[in-house]
């Protein structure tokens, strides 16, 4: 599927000449599209509702099949950021900085989804849109922390300073995640009342399959999004840096324009 000559095979299977797509991302994307369709059928139609015991969840259990996977994807994303930040501080190559930055943005999208599905899930369990559940609360704090990371990136102009400061922040933020989580956990466990309890349904058979399928799918979706987002970040960095040769020439030209002095 070469698309070197636009128009020859113009169609929706052609890659955009300027885009971030590659052959690999195309293949992965197509597989994912089919997989998502299958997943939706498994999760919403094929799998049975949770129906055993007094606190059975009924159809609500289906929210689990997306909530848990997106939560795993968001933690994975921030783990990748921490790793890439450490690698940047070691190697000082812009690729690691791009990876860290891209992963934070994708991670934030998954965090929003985690919070949204968690809140919807919670509404049936607790009757309110927000309850001070440890996992939800610490995820919300994590969300703000990584928004701060992006805000810092936007605030620093110099590319090298930005990369270094962001890398340090990316590492520290990741250390903070478990601290925040456990402190909120202990805080809630002191106040835990009977009405607030996490409903952990027993999951097996097709339900377990739907959950595992969702997890694999979420991680693959993360990988596919990262392919595009990383390339976008890379292109942005290159466009920033591209000016250097021109800028050097322009700067030296000042000397020539001024060169009559010698």
């Amino acid at each position, binding site marked *: 599927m070469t698309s070197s000559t636009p128009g020859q095979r113009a169609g929706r299977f052609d890659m955009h000449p300027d885009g971030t797509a590659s052959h690999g991302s195309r293949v992965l994307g197509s597989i994912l599209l089919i997989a998502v369709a299958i997943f939706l059928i498994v999760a919403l139609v094929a799998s049975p509702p949770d129906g055993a015991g007094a606190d059975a969840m009924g159809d609500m259990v289906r929210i689990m099949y997306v909530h848990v996977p997106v939560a795993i994807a968001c933690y994975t994303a921030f783990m990748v950021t921490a790793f890439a930040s450490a690698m940047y*501080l070691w190697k000082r190559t812009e690729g690691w900085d791009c990876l860290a930055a891209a992963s934070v943005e994708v991670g934030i999208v998954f965090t929003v989804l985690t919070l949204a599905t968690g809140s919807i899930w919670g509404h049936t369990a607790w009757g309110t849109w927000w309850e001070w559940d440890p996992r939800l609360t610490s995820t919300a*704090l*994590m969300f*703000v*922390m990584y*928004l*701060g990371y992006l*805000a*810092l990136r936007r*605030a*620093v102009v*110099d590319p*090298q*300073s930005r990369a*270094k*400061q962001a890398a*340090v*922040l990316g*590492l*520290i933020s990741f*250390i*903070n995640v478990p*601290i*925040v989580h456990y*402190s*909120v956990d*202990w*805080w809630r466990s*002191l106040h835990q009342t009977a009405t607030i309890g996490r409903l952990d349904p027993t999951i097996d058979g097709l339900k377990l399959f739907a959950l595992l399928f969702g997890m694999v799918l979420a991680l693959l979706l993360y990988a596919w999004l990262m392919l595009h987002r990383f390339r976008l970040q890379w292109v942005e960095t290159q466009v920033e840096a591209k000016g250097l040769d021109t800028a050097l020439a322009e700067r030296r030209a000042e000397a020539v324009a001024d060169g009559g002095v010698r």
Partner: protein
Amino acid sequence: MTNTTLRSVISDARLVAGKDLRLEWRSRVTLNQLLPFALLVLVLFAFALDPDRSVLKDATPGLFWLAVLFSTLLAIQRAFAVETVDGIIDALRISGLDPAGIFLGKAAGIALHLLVVEAALLVGVTVMYGASPSGLLLVVATSIAATAGLAAAGAVYGVLAAGLRVRDTLLPILWLPVVAPLLIGATQAFGSAYEKSSGAGWRWCGLLGAFAVLYTAIGFVAFEPLLEES
């Protein structure tokens, strides 16, 4: 070798902290601005909640530490505002001071300012909210541990934001989520201290101490690269 390094770090820290205290003595920013601000926050809480003392009294631990948190933000901003004018950051980089020493010195300076604020707030909640602690030792220990953590994290995030044009708005969003565990721990520990059951309180106090140690370690490592780029 490491021993002499540590000694030079500590002597640099004392130099920087001494300079900060002298600056405070000359400018009186904490005395004239930070203390009134903290007490003002206590009054505002009363307006917001209820003039009825029982509500305020029950909420004293949380309100106390919220007031401390807001005051700390101002203290951090002040601590790094004096370092970012007129080429002082360059002078610090070139000075020969160990960055870890600068970190410790700045954190110690912030911590001392905070302890003064906390002492005033303690009097404030006793007089205005009618809350007097039963476990005074726990109150003192909690204040010291939490202050160390707030100051250490504050110095790390303070220098991170120091050189930026948006530092005043960026610092709260970066720093407040990080010290949320401190707010929880200190409030819980104070809760026990004010209600005579200080068993769980000491555990929270230990958590605060662990946080302080962790952030001091982070500061030792992270301050140098951050000072270079701010």
